[in-house]
């Protein structure tokens, strides 16, 4: 008898909870994957394709589906850390095969070599190149993400990737990098020849 009661009670409860879960499954179903959006927001949006996916969003999608998190070369360690944080996995070092020199760069078109073929324009994922057929092209440096996708399509190899120079604005307080040099101040005309790097940053107190 007690078993029968147990069966009835449990059965009834399960009917109820099953119904509840069934309702919840339909009602709270998540359309799309917010995870992908979050991941996409962490990626640097260079759309460079170095990860092996055509753009940042597809890679975000792939990570959500279990792809390795260490393939974004332009994002570097920082991005990997953030993704690891979001995904709740361990931080991994950047996958060497995807690792390129990821110092920030901008593309630059050597104007005398440009034949105006527009191929780079079509390759640029962020419309950062202006120009028209048979017209010389140029790059809007501010919009360039440095993905270097325009370099390969150029038939005349007139696009160079130039590292972004360090200025007093974007300097990161790296005291070790300061070149200590002494120049003869009295005679500035001699300056060029006298430009001796003593290369003695000493033991810098950092």
């Amino acid at each position, binding site marked *: 008898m007690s078993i029968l009661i147990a069966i009835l009670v449990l059965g009834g409860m399960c009917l109820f909870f099953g119904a509840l879960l069934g309702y919840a499954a339909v009602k709270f179903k998540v359309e799309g994957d917010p995870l992908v959006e979050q991941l996409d927001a962490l990626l640097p949006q260079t759309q460079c394709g170095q990860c092996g996916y055509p753009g940042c969003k597809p890679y975000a999608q792939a990570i959500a589906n279990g792809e390795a998190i260490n393939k974004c070369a332009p994002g570097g360690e920082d991005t990997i850390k953030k993704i690891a944080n979001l995904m709740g996995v361990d931080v991994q070092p950047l996958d060497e095969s995807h690792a390129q020199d990821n110092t920030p760069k901008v593309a630059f078109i050597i104007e005398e070599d440009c034949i105006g073929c527009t191929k780079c324009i079509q390759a640029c994922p962020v419309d950062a190149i202006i120009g028209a057929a048979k017209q010389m092209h140029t790059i809007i440096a501010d919009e360039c993400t440095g993905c270097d996708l325009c370099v390969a399509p150029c038939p005349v190899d007139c696009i160079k990737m130039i590292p972004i120079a360090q200025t007093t604005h974007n300097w990161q307080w790296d*005291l070790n990098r*300061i070149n200590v040099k*002494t120049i003869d101040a009295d005679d500035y005309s001699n300056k060029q020849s006298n430009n001796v790097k003593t290369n003695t940053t*000493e033991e810098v*107190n950092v």
Partner: protein
Amino acid sequence: MAFFIASSPHEHNRNKTSQLMRLVIYATIPGVFAQWYFFGWGNLIQISIAVCCALLTEFTVLSLREKPNGKAIKHQLFDGSAILTAVLLGIAVPALAPWWIIVIGAVFAILVVKQLYGGLGHNPFNPAMAAYVLLLVSFPVQMTNWQPPLSLMSTHLDFANTLSTILTGYTNEGYSVAQLRTHIDGYTMATPLDTLKTNLTLGLTIDESRKNMVFGENFALGWEWINLGFLAGGLFLLAKKAIHWSTPVSFLLSILIFTFIAYTINPGMNAPTMFHWLSGGTMLGAFFILTDPVSGATSVKGRLVFGALAGFIFVIIRHLGGYPDGVAFAVLLCNMAAPLIDLYTKPRTYGQINSNNTTKELT
């Protein structure tokens, strides 16, 4: 010509961590002296064993951790923190505890509590107290075998005898620790705290218990003097500004308040404040353990809360706990609470105001 590049500030007041540590070590001298005077050589031997073991362990771990160059290891080895830990542990263990007790304690303190957590500055617990608790929990027999004051002992305990007891368990004459602890009339001696605890469970009142001879009369037997010694050392540290006043003051005040409440409610079952202040490791804890900056709270407000909480736990353990003294446990529990205390006592940063205030004042 070489130029020296450094980040500001270029000037520095040249206080160093190692100096701070050294100062604290010096400040233990009065207390240790009192210990030596009333209980003999035991603790001095324990301290020296502990220091050796601690330095050896520290050296081994630092070598394994491969810090950049040999100079750095030496630098870290003698920054005083390991020595201080060892000294405190040596003070805390029973004077006649066997040598392997202090060895295990010192190694555990440095290896597990300090270095496994990342070394100096990274340990969440006070290494000396964590090691003391480990020993207390693991070897209750040895750790509760307190030697009675020299004046109450039937055997004469000189340096050689003490050393022999610590190393072999027997004096040169062949007495065991248990025999050493036996009073002339055949009664095994315990510390006042222990005696009090036992007597309370037997239904005796505090006053009855205090007739026991381990309590001595008017500071005669040394426990009070040891505490006073550490108090003196603590005051020296305060004067030197090596420690902040907030923690010891709030700790002792908190003990005062809670023991006073307990004493007022039931004087028969609760010892008076003065007894708690001057027995066990109260003063050592107040000035040398709780003030350990690494495992304590940082802001003044935080330190006040920290000390008060420690005092509360201390009183609770002494009255209700299974162990006679509660300093070590109170310290560890408060160490655990320290990050939380820090979080809730975070100071208001300059300019973080609800703008109502300022505008009101101006208009």
